């Protein structure tokens, strides 16, 4: 061993001070490799006097294991330091934007309609569809609204011929008698769809909007059942118990007829949505008028039922805070893409 060879202690110190795994591995190769000083030491043993050989061999092996242990220890220290540095989150920017996932969207009316369809089908309701271009018979006559009835003025109906034989339905209620023609009681049905009113439009009025009719016919169906069904509906829509109230409302095809108000889900003591009243007028409903049951060939002495008409467009606006109903059917992608 020449003087230029670093002392064993300084090698150990260098191992313990190694800054990273790569330089440590290099040092390990240099010292413990075939060309390294310990290998040279071992190789030189046969040239030593026999009495020194044992001791020299032991010394070399001790150095070898001591050095290997130091390397292993340092390596572990370095790994832990690196893990600690990684775990510290250094260099992580929590405000970087997420990678975008592009996808299309379903119309918010589709989304709410699906939810309601799923809710009601789970309770044994059938989902029905009715034509937008409807016969006067289903729209008026069968609904206990004969010609000359003032209620014909209540809905500003689009007529397709001067005689008014064909109209654009102003409500989804014509599906009621169509349902009775298809199904025998007892039955439960809903019918979502488009309706039309001949009125000028503004942020809260549209000539075309969406509604959902509900109809239940059975033995001894009562106002109590209607209340129960409406509370279930609101639980489904708002995800929690919502207080309701029924008050008299006049619609010729129900008797008694009601307006159903829901306690405003957005405030405790009045807000813009409920016009400071804490109640939101949500849907007209009532017990099916005996004349309507008769029009559907159902004996009102044997069966009774309730019906309701939920404004889907209104519900969508309430749910998403949409301030202008005209956006719904505008076809504007900037509106649609918000409901991904």
């Amino acid at each position: 061993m020449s003087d230029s060879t670093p002392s064993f202690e300084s090698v150990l110190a260098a191992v313990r001070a190694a800054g990273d795994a790569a330089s440590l591995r290099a040092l390990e190769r240099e010292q413990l490799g075939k060309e390294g000083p310990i290998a040279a030491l071992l190789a030189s043993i046969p040239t030593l006097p026999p009495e020194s050989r044992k001791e020299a061999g032991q010394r070399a092996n001790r150095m070898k294991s001591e050095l290997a242990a130091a390397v292993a220890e340092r390596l572990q220290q370095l790994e832990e330091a690196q893990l600690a540095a990684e775990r510290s989150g250094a260099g992580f920017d929590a405000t970087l934007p997420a990678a975008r996932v592009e996808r299309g969207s379903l119309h918010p009316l589709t989304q709410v309609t699906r939810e309601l369809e799923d809710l009601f089908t789970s309770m044994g309701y059938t989902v029905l569809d009715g034509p937008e271009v409807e016969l006067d018979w289903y729209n008026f006559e069968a609904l206990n609204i004969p010609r000359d009835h003032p209620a014909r003025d209540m809905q500003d109906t689009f007529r397709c011929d001067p005689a008014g034989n064909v109209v654009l339905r102003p409500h989804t209620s014509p599906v009621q008698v169509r349902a009775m023609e298809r199904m025998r009681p007892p039955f439960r049905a809903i019918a979502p769809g488009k309706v039309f009113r001949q009125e000028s439009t503004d942020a809260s009025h549209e000539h075309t909007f969406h509604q959902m009719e509900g109809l239940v016919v059975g033995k001894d169906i009562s106002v109590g059942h209607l209340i129960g069904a409406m509370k279930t509906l609101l639980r489904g829509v708002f995800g929690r118990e919502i207080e309701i109230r029924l008050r008299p409302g006049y619609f010729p095809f129900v008797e008694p007829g009601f307006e159903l108000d829901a306690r405003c889900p957005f405030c405790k003591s009045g807000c813009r949505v409920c016009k400071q009243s804490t109640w939101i007028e949500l849907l007209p409903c009532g017990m099916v008028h005996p004349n309507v049951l008769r029009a559907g060939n159902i004996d009102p002495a044997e069966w009774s039922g309730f019906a309701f008409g939920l404004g889907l467009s209104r519900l969508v606006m309430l749910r998403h805070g949409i301030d202008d109903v005209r956006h719904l059917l505008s076809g504007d992608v900037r509106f649609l893409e918000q409901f991904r």
Partner: protein
Amino acid sequence: MKISYRWLGRHVDLSGISPQRVVEDLTLSTCEVESLTPFLPHLANIVVGHVLTRAKHPDADKLSVCSVDCGEGTARQIVCGAPNVDAGQMVAVALPGVELPGDFRIKKSKIRGVESDGMICSERELGLGDEHNGIWVLPETLKPGAKLADAMDLSDWVIEIDNKSLTHRPDLWGHRGFAAEIAAMHLRPLKPLETSLPPTGNGPTVPVRIESQACTRYLALRLEGVQARRSPDWLRALLFAVDQRPIDLLVDLSNFVMLDLGQPNHVFDATRLDASGITVRNARAEERFRTLDGVERRLEPSDLLIASGDKAVALAGIMGGEDSKVEAGTQSLLLEVASFHFATVRRTAARLALRTDSSTRFEKNLDPTLPLRAAGHYVRLLAQLEPGLRLPAPLCDAGEWKDPARVIELSCERVRSLLGVELADVHIADILMRLGFGVKGSSGTLYVSVPSARATKDIGIDSDLIEEVGRIHRYGNIPEARITAPIAPPPRDEGWQRRMLVRTLQDRLAGAARFHETLSYSFVSDAILAELGATEERHVAVINPIAEGFSKIRRHVMPSLLATLAHNRRMAGEVRLFEIGKGYQPEYSSTRGEPREVHELSLVWAGPVPAKGARFDAGRFSQLQGVLEDLVRATGRQSLSWSAPDPASLPSWAHPGRALVGRAGEGDALVTLAALEPRLAARLGLKDELASDVALAELSLDVLLGAEAAGPRYRPLPVFPAVKVDVAVAAPRERSAGELAAVLTRAGKGLVRDLELFDLYEGEKLGAGRRSHAWHVTLVSDERTLGEEDIGKFFQRAEREFTQLGAELRKG
């Protein structure tokens, strides 16, 4: 309609029942209340003043300087411009700080150099009339400093009712009807109202001839010794509260009776009528009549007229005539109170766009017993205010009318079962009696007599009575109940299948395909139809459209999407839209008149034109074609097979040279796919910076629903490895990709598992009129591992056939 709280108090004791409580009661038991507002709230701040002295303004001829005692100890100096102000008067004073209607705040100020510490008000300034020729001179009995609203009984609340919610309640078109509701709810009696006709003289009655069935009752009564003078303040205030402008005593009382009892009536100046009396008849064709609003109306034979001699004097139940109206000098009246047929009045009022307080009430089908009470009410009120009133002759009561009062049998058990609440028989009977129904019977069955006021149309069957019980009991007192019934899954009928298909299509499109779903109006504009050249097509159309050019209902969904395309391209650049909806085709109407309804999915994909050198399938046409194949696969139908359509059969939006028709198995065309018709593109605004690559497709849900289901079939996994080779072929341009691919399939002799075209190329290297096609070809055998030799044979067979087609394999 507006209801005055003070007015209600004339009919029922409201002590302890606040206006807010009245509103709540009406809301929960009767009708829809739109608002509750204090009547002229600023009146609470106006005080009574006593004009002590009046002197001329030193600098202005028309102004007076007054000293006014407002009950404050010292008098105030107020400058007043009214000609009628004078010392000794009691006047209405607005003190500084008070705000009057029209954002007018009174301030202490100098008028032409003289200090004025308040304002003496006219009725108009207070919101109580049109009178502005002078200040309002109050009764001398008032005390200076008193609040005007208290001193003159002016404080009131106005309840606005939603008229629509009264459509079925002819009894609620006057204050007494509402008072009866409140009385029933609070178990209080209605105050008695004497309406019998006072004794009359024995002169000849007014002759009345009724020539039309639309008039079932006509009362006519002469009143002499009257004057069209100003009504008393209490009457004016009540009329003001409900938005009825006071005119003169004779007309005001006529309006008062209508608003009190709900019975319209009319007063004519008797001297301006013909001596022959009154005839109720239909209008003659082309007959004209000037109503008292000064408008000349062109009438039709379905209109009902009141005539006197050969002249019409009133449009029955709607409006009187100008020539016979009460005027300043009127001293002799003919009072008309009648029953007119509701539909006749409604039709005429609607046609003439002349809805009046009177016609609105007649339309509701009024109680035919009411006219007699209304006539007595008018006469008695007038007698109190007009000491000189004389009735020279008995009332004429003409017409044939039936009392609609009836008896309805009501099962108490049915009341309980329909309402879903336990109510004792006596409780049911009690509610009905409080509402004025007569009730007899026992052991669960009630015989309910319906008074005429409720019987004209509201109460006809037992359900109507059940509503009466329910609303007074209050619906909030009915417990929530659950329906118990067996539940079965809904039938898997056509409607169900269509809904499931629609959901699948929506989900696929809104997912990986990145389309936005839109919903459109069913109306299709004449403008877009003109762009499409589809003006001549038959459409369902409405006769009362919302606007000119928006009367037609779409036959297909596509025009709705095209209408928004340019706007969306401008806003969003890349547009992927779909709509699932209905179209209506009147040429296929049912015998009942229902037009055929088609269900369609329409898709639009538009964006910038792809760059030169982009991959051959980078265009929207290819991309949309892929989306459609994926959609149809997702619905579990056979894979789409495409063919070139007859251009004549294509819809007008389709590019005649770039269109395909797709079928899923046998049967009708399911999909039409096309690029946008190039001339239409420009007309829709897709030019210049909006020049677009547009693909469109229309898929018939009706055809899809009928297409045979063919879900994926399992194929055993390959035992031997697949070999993938690339094949490039240069061929004359007329050789289609399909033709060349078929060569490869044949050359594989059943080994070709997949063929994927990945490049199309034209260029100088190939020579003119030639195009290079390149495929990834996957070959698999079910029997062995394919070797070099198999691949070589595949290429040899392919090359042989390609050569026959004038094509050659490209090596490299």
